[in-house]
């Protein structure tokens, strides 16, 4: 397991970020060197508003994700388990799914103002679809032989059939929803003004605090990476014991 | 023709050194049909891949004179799923003028009995038919040497019998040099003019057995023939010896 290549890549990226602004290849006013950004970050880390913002973003993200996953699983398993429901709702789902979450922004601003709740609605809406689609695929993927077996032995289907089959898909859905949720949380904060990292970035932009802006973007990116890694780890664990490892179904 | 001289291949798998081939030396004359058999894991596929130029030997040489074609065991994965059968067969011939290409494709498909399936996609066909497409593609390419890596291992017995006869028929008509790798002892004796038995890994050539059965062979009578049974027994005994590690 060679680590030097990935580290080399990161180092090269860092070096470019440091050098290009310094030699003037990129205007330093618009793109401060990495060291300047880190410096700014170290100052910002001492401000309570920084940690409040992180807390707000993480809360919005986690709560929204939680609601979306729960709703997605319940709705998905219910619809998936009842063939009639599946056929009747199929077209509605296909119509509602592509509606961009940003379309809700004006509505949500009107109804809930610039509170966390606004961002939360966006997060739940966008993440719900990710989970629902995967769960529906999962339930549809049930092995017909397994279903027949469950019928013969009168096993409760949801517990012994649908849930185990759908579990890897649920894990994939959660992974997809995780990154979508973070994007929408930060977007909501930036565009609506709900409290959080997104709002801090917007404020930094308004007050022309360019290094601070970059520092906050860096932090957001790192949070995103951490979230992705966690979600992928959880997904691999859910898939590991599952007999047939499945690929992500195109959402 | 085909010459293998002191071929050895050592893999580096997860820090362990795996010596698949130790010292393989044999040759196949032009137009000859030779089969390679050996115990499981003796490196038959490695040998073929060295011959095909897909793998570099650790030492020694594996040379093929003339254009070569390969028919893989996993027929399903060797055909391009986005191309129809006739386009699959035609793909290696893209440098030829259209008419010549079309003629070769038609002839090749006819030779394997798949003229009707020319417009189908490979995944619409059965396993045996897919392998025929792979064979047709190899034939159309016009090779001097044909390497086949356990091509019939993954088809059912009935289809295998048909394909065995098909390949002998094609070999006789085209006069290619054929190296056929198999783990099926009966098949190797039925098909080949010579059977090369490999030892267990790290493999060497354990024995080369000349199959002096008549050129006209058929599934029913040849397999019941006394000489067939005798040769088969020899190969079997040799493989048992090879499995136990004595060369």
């Amino acid at each position, binding site marked *: 397991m*060679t680590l030097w*290549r*990935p580290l080399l*890549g*990161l180092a090269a*990226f860092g070096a470019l970020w440091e050098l290009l602004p310094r030699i003037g290849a990129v205007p330093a006013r*618009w*793109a401060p060197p990495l060291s300047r950004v880190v410096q700014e970050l170290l100052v910002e880390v001492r401000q309570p508003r920084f940690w409040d913002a992180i807390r707000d973003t993480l809360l919005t993200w986690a709560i929204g994700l939680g609601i979306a996953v729960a709703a997605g699983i319940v709705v998905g398993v219910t619809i998936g388990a009842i063939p009639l429901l599946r056929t*009747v*709702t*199929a*077209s*509605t789902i296909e119509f509602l*799914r*592509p509606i*961009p*979450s*940003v*379309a809700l*922004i*004006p*509505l949500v601003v*009107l109804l809930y103002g610039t509170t966390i709740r606004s961002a939360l609605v966006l997060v739940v809406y966008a993440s719900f679809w990710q989970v629902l689609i995967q769960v529906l695929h999962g339930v549809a993927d049930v092995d017909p032989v397994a279903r027949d077996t469950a019928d013969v032995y009168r096993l409760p289907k949801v517990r012994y059939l649908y849930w185990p089959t759908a579990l890897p898909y649920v894990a994939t859905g959660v992974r997809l929803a995780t*990154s979508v949720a*973070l*994007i929408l949380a*930060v*977007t909501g904060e*930036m*565009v609506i003004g709900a409290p959080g990292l*997104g709002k801090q*970035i*917007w404020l930094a932009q308004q007050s022309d605090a360019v290094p601070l*802006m970059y520092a906050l*973007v860096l932090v*957001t*990116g*790192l949070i995103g990476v951490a*979230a*992705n890694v966690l979600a992928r780890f959880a997904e691999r664990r859910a898939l590991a014991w599952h007999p047939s490892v499945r690929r*992500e179904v*195109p*959402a | 023709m085909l010459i293998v001289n002191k071929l050895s291949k050592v893999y580096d798998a997860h820090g362990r050194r795996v010596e698949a081939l130790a010292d393989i030396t044999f040759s196949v004359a032009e137009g000859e049909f030779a089969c390679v058999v050996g115990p499981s894991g003796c490196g038959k596929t490695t040998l073929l891949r060295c011959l*095909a*130029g*897909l793998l570099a030997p650790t030492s020694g040489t594996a040379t093929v004179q003339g254009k*070569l*074609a*390969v028919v*893989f065991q996993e027929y399903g994965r*060797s055909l*391009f*799923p*986005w191309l129809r059968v006739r386009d699959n067969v035609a793909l*290696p011939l*893209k440098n030829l003028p259209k008419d010549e290409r079309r003629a070769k494709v038609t002839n090749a498909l006819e030779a394997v009995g798949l003229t009707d399936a020319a417009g189908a*996609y490979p*995944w*619409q066909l059965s396993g045996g038919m897919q392998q025929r497409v792979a064979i047709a*593609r190899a034939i159309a390419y016009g090779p001097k040497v044909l390497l086949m890596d356990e091509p019939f291992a993954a088809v059912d017995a009935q289809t295998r019998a048909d394909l065995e006869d098909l390949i002998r028929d094609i070999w006789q008509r085209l006069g290619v040099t054929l190296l056929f790798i198999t783990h099926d002892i009966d098949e190797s004796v039925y098909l080949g003019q010579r059977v090369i038995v490999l030892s267990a890994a790290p493999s060497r050539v354990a024995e080369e057995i000349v199959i002096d059965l008549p050129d006209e062979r058929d599934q029913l009578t040849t397999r019941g023939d006394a000489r067939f049974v005798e040769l088969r027994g020899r190969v079997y005994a040799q493989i048992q010896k090879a499995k136990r590690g004595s060369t």
Partner: protein
Amino acid sequence: MTIVRRIVVLLGLPVALVAGWWFASAGSTDFFRPSLQRIMQAFAETWLGPRLVDEVLPSMIRFVLGYAAALLIGVVVGVAIGLSPKARATAEPVLEFLRAIPPPVLVPIIMLFTGIGDTTKIIVIVSGCVWPILLNTVEGVRAIDEVLAETCRVYRIKPLRHLVLRASSPQIVTGARQALAIGLILMVISELVAASGGLGFTIRQFERGFQIPEMWSGVLLLGLIGVALAGLFHLAERRTLAWYHGSRDADRK
């Protein structure tokens, strides 16, 4: 009988929902939640006119340009990285970091360089769309069946031309589909943040000016555009990936 049944199944629930919305909101005096009838009226007045060309069309053109650029960059770079395990290992952590940055967050940064014009909006769209395409392309190229690759080597078939793109196209399409949704979102956001015209900007103006039915109608239009794009994508995908769906179905049997 089956045609009728299929139409009922297909349209039944949507029609029922729309009808329910219509009647539930009819005669509504809630300022923030006007009746569906009023919204439809505003839709016709607002969008079926000069605004379609002045605001909606430029938005869609920017979207198409940004999406196309993202496709080109994503596939070219993705193939280059995917073909080389060394390049993949080197680039992976950097790509992971860059793609984890929520694209809207980059808008202020992009605005620093290119102001609030069309260029910014297109770059914003590219900055978000390129990641799912690039990463999925890398994955698709990486997962090309080695038997196919070996077949190309034996028969001297040029893999770049005949194998790489086709074999990885299912995975690329997955990325392109994700990028479609992201692109639409970014199109709107770029107009909300770099406020100077476009569909998203117009909707926001309505919201700020408390022209509520107009705002709702804009939201509706966005939804319809999303659905239409998804539908177009589905049609395009069915044609280019017909072989893939066929072979997957065959595998399943």
